[in-house]
């Protein structure tokens, strides 16, 4: 898994669009997909004399996220201008945070239920609030020589979440992103839709290579243009190999001549990274405090009240579910990773059938499979937790077996009926105990070879009888047939 020849050092920068109605510094809509340049105003297109005012909700969502990421919240924060020229940045500067970000020094715990790496805390360097740029489109197909600029996105609130360089593999980077996305979803601060650009990932990666007593570091590469978590994973694998090969061919160390930081873009078609423009020095952005914006202060009481309102977050919820319902850590992980609405469904189901493990199995094996087939979310699932709970109670009572119950669930969906109605429709009735016994006697009489096997203790032989019994009456409970047959053979 990990190459002993080198250690991979990865830090991630995640930009997440906060779910506000309006932009960070003006009241234009942030909704995605509108006609180009229909959601702009003098503030977000940088007209002289316009004044930005901070969106209360954007700050609140940023603060909520920072607190959930275990960040320290300084009492005082301010915004700065980051100057650079690009056609999609009409003001000529981005409003960001430089030396006094709204939060820093947090952490996020990642783990792998399959044990690919140890559970560890990934440091969060900082999370700060800034405005987004617009979109440039170059339509080569139309043979157009100009780029077209749409400024609808300009000014949308972004939270930039910067991790410490604590990640040691592409697997860990993937786990960090999944856990971060899950947390953001639980918090309801972003829809995290990568296709719509609500969540964007840049990665910084280099290698530490053992050189006898000392360790040599390869030049840091910032990787951009990764449009899915899978792309991030692949790009990081590719880049680690590329840097190692490059080092073997020509060992250049970080900071030595030719060893400065570079930017590379991920090419998803070719599955390679390509060199992009040289990264400007940080000082070239000529940050200075934005005189148009006022600072923001947060008291300990403010932070405590935000913390108090967070609700149970994924890490804690996994532990709670495992403990409360007696399910495995792995199962709790699967349920929690599906999001809060599915967890709510599971909890309601577990309460309805009074059996956490059975509820967990049914949610994971059947509800998730059906949702996948329907391409639906749990909110759209046609069977309520209470209705499914009824069915699971019939199973617990021995009225129906697990396999037949799956048919019943399908019937409940098709006919939008209750468990009892679906069972009646399928002709499933509880088979009377005396009927069962006479059926078993018939079967034993007709199958002397099976009886002989059972007498010798070959219990698997009973399977043949169960098959025959189900043919005669599909509603019999296999477990009951098995125990009755074994009991009868003992009496022979």
């Amino acid at each position, binding site marked *: 898994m990990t190459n002993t020849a080198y250690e991979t050092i990865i830090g991630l920068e995640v930009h997440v669009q906060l779910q506000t*109605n*309006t932009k960070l510094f003006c009241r234009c809509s942030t909704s995605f997909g509108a006609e180009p*340049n229909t959601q*702009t*105003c003098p503030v977000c297109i940088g007209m002289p004399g316009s004044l930005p005012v901070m*969106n209360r909700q954007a700050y609140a969502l940023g603060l909520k996220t920072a607190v959930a990421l275990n960040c320290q919240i300084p009492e005082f924060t301010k915004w700065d201008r980051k100057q650079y020229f690009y056609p999609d940045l009409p003001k000529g500067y981005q409003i960001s945070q430089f030396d006094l970000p709204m939060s820093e020094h947090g952490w996020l715990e990642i783990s792998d239920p399959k044990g690919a790496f140890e559970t560890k805390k990934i440091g969060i360097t900082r999370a700060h609030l800034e405005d987004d740029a617009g979109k440039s489109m170059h339509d080569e197909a139309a043979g157009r020589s100009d780029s077209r600029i749409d*400024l609808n996105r300009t000014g949308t609130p972004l939270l930039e979440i910067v991790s410490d360089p604590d990640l040691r593999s592409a697997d860990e980077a993937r786990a960090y992103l999944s856990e971060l996305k899950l947390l953001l979803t639980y918090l309801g601060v972003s829809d995290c839709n990568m296709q719509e650009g609500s969540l964007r990932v840049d990665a910084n990666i280099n290698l530490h290579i053992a050189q006898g007593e000392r360790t040599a570091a390869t030049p840091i590469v910032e990787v951009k243009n990764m449009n899915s978590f899978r792309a991030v994973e692949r790009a990081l694998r590719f880049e680690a190999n590329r840097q190692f090969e490059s080092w073997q061919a020509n060992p250049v160390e970080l900071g030595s001549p030719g060893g400065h930081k570079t930017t590379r873009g991920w090419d998803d078609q070719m599955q390679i990274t390509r060199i992009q423009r040289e990264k400007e020095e940080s000082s070239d952005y000529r940050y200075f405090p934005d005189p148009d914006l006022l600072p923001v202060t947060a008291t300990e009481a403010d932070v405590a009240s935000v913390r108090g309102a967070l609700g149970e977050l994924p890490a804690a919820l996994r532990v709670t579910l495992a403990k409360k319902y007696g399910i495995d850590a792995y199962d709790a992980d699967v349920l929690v990773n599906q999001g809060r609405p599915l967890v709510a469904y599971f909890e309601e189901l577990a309460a309805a059938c009074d059996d956490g493990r059975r509820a967990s199995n049914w949610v994971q094996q059947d509800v998730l499979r059906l949702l996948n087939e329907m391409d639906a979310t749990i909110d759209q699932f046609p069977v309520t937790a209470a209705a499914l709970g009824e069915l699971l109670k019939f199973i617990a009572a021995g009225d129906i077996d697990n396999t037949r119950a799956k048919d019943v669930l399908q019937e409940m969906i098709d006919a939008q009926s209750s468990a009892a109605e679906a069972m009646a429709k399928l002709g499933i009735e509880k088979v009377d105990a005396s009927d069962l016994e006479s059926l078993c006697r018939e079967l034993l009489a007709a199958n002397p070879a099976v009886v002989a096997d059972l007498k010798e203790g070959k219990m698997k032989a009973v399977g043949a009888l169960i098959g025959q019994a189900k043919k005669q009456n599909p509603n019999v409970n296999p477990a009951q047939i098995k125990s009755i047959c074994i009991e009868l053979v003992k009496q022979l």
Partner: protein
Amino acid sequence: MSLSKADVEKVASLARLKLTDEELSTMTRQLDQVIQYVQQLEELDTSGVQPMAHTADLANVFADDLLRASLPRDAALANAPKRDDECYLVPPVLGD
């Protein structure tokens, strides 16, 4: 400190300004004077003075997250040197 021509060339380049040799000389002299003027502030003893982020003694000024009408597209695009029906047009942007 005195400003060099190289300093001014760098600042001009970051601001995407193209200066003739003559303009570069004039700018270097004028910017140098501006800096020297502001530099007089260094004569003040500011030890024990809290850094100030803003001249207004205010903080926590927010607006509620309530939608307001945006500019009509034609008005937004009105000042663009070049445009089509929907977008601003700029010389081709290379790379990303």
